[in-house]
């Protein structure tokens, strides 16, 4: 079923793709930064501080998306006994973790001018911090355990347990009274509470961040495949 995803077959593509993805990322990021920092309007309440949204929100979205993928890949690895799923998940995790940290730090910077504080134990911020801890545990487990089967089991367990936190992050603003406002964009509804002049730069920056995570994923995945092949040379 997953034969077309075998590393031997896809390496020819994954080894050549990074240079094209890097070029596309630089183009999209340049457009995104121009829109976010120069062309988009200031907010009537937050003034220019609103521009932090263009790095904070895409980073949070992508870190959540990547963690959800880790959980799905871990379930897939258990169900289909496919070790390539674990390798894909391992290659996705570093960029997810960095995006999580970016979301926390830029959120803290944004909090000072809007809420008057760098940090608050608000439900959304706390659940994002918990996600960072799960990312940290996931990455550490890959470094600590040497046995391949054991590390796949442990990391899968961390990813699946951590995935319980994902809907908590998403709905924290609805379930509890938090400093965060409710979601302005809902993919299941056409009711978008954000003007096109801000939605377009947000979309472009999200695309740029997604391209960056794809670039890092491809480079990490190639590294992991070469590691496997290095061990193969030892066995010859």
């Amino acid at each position, binding site marked *: 079923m997953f034969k077309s995803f075998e590393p031997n077959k896809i390496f020819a593509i994954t080894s050549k793709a990074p240079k094209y993805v890097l070029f596309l990322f630089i183009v999209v990021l340049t457009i995104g930064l121009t829109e976010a920092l120069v062309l988009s309007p200031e907010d009537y309440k937050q003034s*220019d501080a609103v521009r932090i949204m263009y790095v904070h929100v895409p980073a949070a979205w992508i870190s959540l998306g990547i963690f959800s993928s880790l959980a799905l890949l871990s379930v897939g690895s258990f169900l289909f006994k496919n070790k390539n799923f674990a390798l894909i998940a391992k290659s996705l995790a*570093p960029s997810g973790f*960095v995006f999580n940290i*970016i979301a926390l730090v830029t959120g803290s910077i944004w909090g000072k*001018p809007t809420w008057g504080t760098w940090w608050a134990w608000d439900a959304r911020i706390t659940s994002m911090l918990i996600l960072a801890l799960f990312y940290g545990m996931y990455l550490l487990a890959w470094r600590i355990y040497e046995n391949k089967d054991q590390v796949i089991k442990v990391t899968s367990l961390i990813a699946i347990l951590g995935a319980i936190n994902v809907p908590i992050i998403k709905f924290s603003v609805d379930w509890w009274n938090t400093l965060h406002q409710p979601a302005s964009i809902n993919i299941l509804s056409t009711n978008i509470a954000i003007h096109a002049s801000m939605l377009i730069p947000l979309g472009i920056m999200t695309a740029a961040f997604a391209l*960056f995570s794809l670039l890092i994923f491809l480079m990490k995945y190639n590294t992991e*495949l*070469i590691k496997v092949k*290095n061990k193969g*040379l030892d066995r010859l």
Partner: protein
Amino acid sequence: MINEIISMNGYGTYVWSAFSFTLISFTTLYFVTKLQLSKEQRRFASKFSSLNIEKARTARSQNINREILSNISNI
């Protein structure tokens, strides 16, 4: 115009530090990942060059090994 972009109505410190932190994180992650990839490619090249003719021929029979070697020659 330039001054307005820099000062951001008094929020410049917050806006520019958030964007700078993001771009510095991107650059660091990119170069760390690139370094790890190059290190692994060099290790592969060194192991491959130490193989005898017979083993090197067996290793070359795999497409993925040929791809790795061609990528190493490109860097």
